[in-house]
């Protein structure tokens, strides 16, 4: 059994040294780490959910501080907290429902257990609905949840029956939370696939697509369309200074997609021939704006100028419940200037031994741009396509308001 603290520290160090890159990987690792934190956490008989929340919060605090720029960490921490709250609520309502049920039918039989549980699950769903704000998503989720809860309880039914009510419920919270986190991890894993499934609906025959830099989501999206025998062309803006666009172009060519690499500065010249801009982003903010690789704002403005739709593909783990003006949000990461220029070539411009000693040359290398929601036409997430104006609804579904400030 690995020591949780050690695991946390290891991950913190990785985040600090910027060894984990990309929100997908970060999200997955964070979720896995939190899963082990939860599973190792001793739960007292009362207030189990609160203990779990506290434990996750403490770890989450450390993780977000380690790399405040990577918003996916905070997202996943909040998602897990939300899961715990949900499970607590579920249990609470279930108890209430169970009570009702017991009042309703005096003689509870072992043989009727299955039926009872389905009934109780329905009751749970009903009671939960009354506690939660109504939304399309919760309604949809309720159906899934109730079936899930039904399966879960039916699986461990025979053992649980023998144990005392409290004990089973205690184990259940933790157990259910872990189950839910597992589902979250599966979701994160499957997000590329789910997004890519929708590709054919958006990419049409003989279209010209423009993208900037490299994004795994975009790659999968375009490849999926290609696999479905769509024929289209892709312009890849190289994405200076890291030139990740070159990597994307190579990978696209491997998949048999007709690709053209252009410099970032040529985007405006090319955009009039483009049917759609598809890009990946770093994070999606609560107002529907996005934090994206540097140069994206320019691409978005060019697209707006020529009325070309700008489509953002992003997994739900990139959904950040914060607004871009929140003080907790560190919008940008100023990266090393050596990505831009060669130190040796400029070293004589930075000799502080002569002249005033004040640095005259400053090299700025921001990693991200902020693109406001007005410039974005559509978000394609693993749960379907959404308007920028709908993002706040999604956030209400995935996060609880109590966790916005960690």
């Amino acid at each position, binding site marked *: 059994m690995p020591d949780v603290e050690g695991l946390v520290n*290891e991950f913190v*160090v990785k985040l600090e040294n910027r060894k984990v890159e990309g929100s997908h990987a970060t999200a997955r690792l964070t979720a896995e780490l939190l899963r082990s934190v939860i599973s190792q956490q001793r739960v007292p008989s009362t207030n189990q959910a609160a203990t779990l929340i506290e434990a996750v919060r403490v770890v989450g605090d450390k993780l977000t501080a380690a790399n405040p720029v990577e918003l996916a960490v905070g997202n996943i921490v909040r998602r897990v907290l939300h899961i715990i709250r949900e499970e607590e609520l579920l249990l609470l309502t279930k108890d209430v429902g169970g009570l009702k049920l017991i009042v309703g039918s005096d003689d509870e039989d072992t043989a009727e257990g299955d039926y009872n549980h389905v009934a109780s699950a329905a009751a749970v769903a009903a009671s939960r609905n009354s506690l939660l704000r109504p939304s399309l998503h919760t309604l949809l989720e309720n159906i899934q949840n109730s079936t899930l809860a039904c399966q879960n309880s039916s699986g461990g039914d025979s053992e649980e029956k023998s144990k005392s009510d409290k004990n089973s419920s205690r184990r259940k919270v933790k157990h259910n939370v872990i189950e839910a986190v597992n589902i979250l991890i599966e979701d994160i894993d499957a997000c590329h696939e789910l997004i890519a499934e929708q590709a054919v609906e958006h990419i049409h025959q003989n279209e010209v697509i423009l993208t900037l830099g490299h994004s795994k989501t975009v790659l999968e999206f375009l490849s999926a369309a290609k696999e479905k025998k769509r024929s289209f062309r892709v312009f890849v803006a190289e994405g200076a200074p890291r030139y990740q666009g070159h990597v994307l172009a190579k990978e696209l060519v491997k998949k048999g997609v007709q690709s053209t690499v252009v410099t970032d500065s040529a985007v405006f010249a090319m955009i009039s021939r483009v049917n759609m801009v598809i890009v990946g982003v770093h994070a999606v903010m609560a107002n529907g704006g996005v934090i994206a690789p540097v140069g994206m704002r320019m691409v978005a403005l060019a697209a707006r100028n020529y009325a070309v739709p700008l489509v953002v593909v992003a997994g739900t783990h990139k959904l950040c419940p914060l607004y871009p003006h929140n003080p907790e949000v560190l919008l940008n990461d100023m990266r090393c200037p050596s990505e831009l220029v060669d130190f040796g070539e400029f*070293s004589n411009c*930075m000799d502080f031994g002569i002249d005033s000693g004040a640095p005259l040359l400053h090299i700025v290398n921001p990693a991200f741009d902020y693109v406001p929601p007005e410039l974005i036409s559509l978000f394609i997430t693993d749960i379907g396509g959404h308007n920028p104006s709908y993002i706040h609804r999604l956030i209400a579904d995935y996060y609880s308001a109590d966790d916005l400030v960690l």
Partner: protein
Amino acid sequence: MVQKKAASRVSEDAEEELARAPLQAVLLADSFAQKFRPITLERPKVLLPLVNIPMIDYTLAWLESAGVEEVFVFCCAHSRQVIDYLNNSKWFGQPNFTIKTIESHNSVSAGDALRLIYEQNVIYEDFILISGDTLSNMSLTQALEEHKERRKKNSNAVMTMVIKKSKPSPLTHQSRLGTDELFMAIDPETKQLLYYEDKADHLKGSITLDKMLLADNPSVSLHNDKQDCYIDICSPEVLSLFTDNFDYQHLRRHFVKGLLVDDIMGYKIFTHEIYSSYAARIDNFRSYDTVSKDIIQRWTYPFVPDVQFFGNNAAKLERQGMYRSSGIVQSRSAQIGPFTVIGNGTTIGNNTKISNSVVGEGCNIGSNVAIEGSYIWHNVTIEDGCTIRHAIVCDGVIMKSGAVLEPGVVLSFKVVIGQQFVVPAYSKVSLLQQPTKQDSDEELEYADDSSGIVKIPSITCTSDKLSGKLTSELSETQRWATSEVGAGGVGFIWSVGEGGYEEELRHSVAPIPADKLAEIIQAANDDVEMSAQDGNLLPPSGELQPDSNSIGSEDNIEDMRDDYIYFEKEVEATFLRAVQENITEEHVVLEVNSLRLSYNKTSVDCASALFYSMMKLALETPHSSTSELLGNATNVIGTWQKLLKYYLPSLDEEIEVILKFEEMCLESAKEFSSIFVQVLHLLYDKDILQEDAIHNWATEKEGADESDKVFLKQSEKFIQWLNEASEEED
């Protein structure tokens, strides 16, 4: 023997080894130098804050991120402080990163340290050798692979040195880091290091390469734009080499140069150049300044103030490279300029201006203070109206109102500067007295830190509770009455170090002032001019020295000129000795001839040098009037005319002597200018100069500038007389 076995095993299954052996590093937490005195008398250099974080943390953070798993920290000076610090830091108890400290009290050099580590027998693999004041963000993977690859082919490739391109300033001949210009010869194919010279005399402007170097290698590229990063990947043999050569002290000066020169064992050193990553060592205050600025400009990313790479309080990056921690109390009217770092819990008063500076944690800065290009450490109190420019202010310093720090000042721990006191430029102030003994000796340079230092017992306590204590001490410290640092001030001003003022300029935090820089440029220009002048006087036989291959003809001439000055001095000494001890002319001729041979000079040089010494003797013999001076000259020349004549076999030499005399009259011996003609006449009378020589000289000078003709005009009559005399004879 153990080492050998290990080595052979390495070559056999190096790949397996690579997979399982943990990567080790040796970190020298002592620089074995005194550049940071007086600060380092109280705190080891590796614990000095660099942009508010102790230097050693940068090094350790890098080692960790580079995949090093085991670090041996060698502590020497103030070892207790280093060990205590590490024990309380987060570095202990990391899962895949162990730190072991090795303590020593009698090691005085890097060589001693490595010998001790060898004795401990803990290194059994290739390791990283680094000192605790080096910071980098390079990835070691490639360098390590290259090193192991080379080792497999040739087990004599014992070391890989990391270098980086960085242009030295053409004006000051020093790198951005304040170190001397570094010359390296590297084989462009194999990257083998062939030559390493960091103490090249830039005044002479030449370096000397062994011609075997050129003969043995098909191609050699010579660089002066490379910076030594002081990060070495070493094989275990390096440790045993240090043990075998017990006189190796300095890593570069002795070890690297020793290996390069020694061709019996055939050990080789290779280089690995890094391009996009950063690496630098803090060697002096100048590099402290430069590296701090590089950190603020983010070249060391991810080791920058706004990234929490070591449990530190991450500051937030704002516009124009301004880093501010969260808990700052700042007046609305305070102006904090670009490229500034402000630490946690610092308060800043009204109308205070701070630019290009680093301010530590818990500082208290009053109103109307101006801070520019300075490094203020932690818990410093700066009262109203102070001015600080390009200075380093250590922990716990108190500056009373109106005090001024001029560029280059270093205030050591807990110094108090009195009201309105102006600390002169480049001075260093410490609570400890400057050691009276000046250790100029090479060996003593490494001497134990505490030697010769008067410690004030009540103040040397290093804990932070001193601030409370200080008030009680103030009453006791009435002996500071004659304070060197103003009324109510506490501290001694250290006099300028051994290196002298020039060294101080080159190595301080302050930029070299404009007038000094102009002087340096002027001096450089003069050098060029002078060498060009001398170039005309150079004998045609200016061959290359037999076993050297000088680079650049101009440098060569410079070299000759220097040589001539030495030669002249030697000849003068010989001559004076001859006069005092009545040595016969033949003996003097013998001695001068031997000098001529050893300095590779011609008889012209001998003649002018001898003549110069004679005239100087005449000048130095007491005299009250010019006529007496002429008498002196007559005497000297009369006595030694044969000697002079010996070196004047032809007209050319005689003309040379006249030219020399003219030069003397203009420069070193102006007294002679009034009696130039008389002396010329004297020389003619004594048959030292022939008539033709004087004529030739006159015609040669005919075309010269007006200013050069002063003596020609003086001697017009004499020449006329000569002409008439010869006509009469006809």
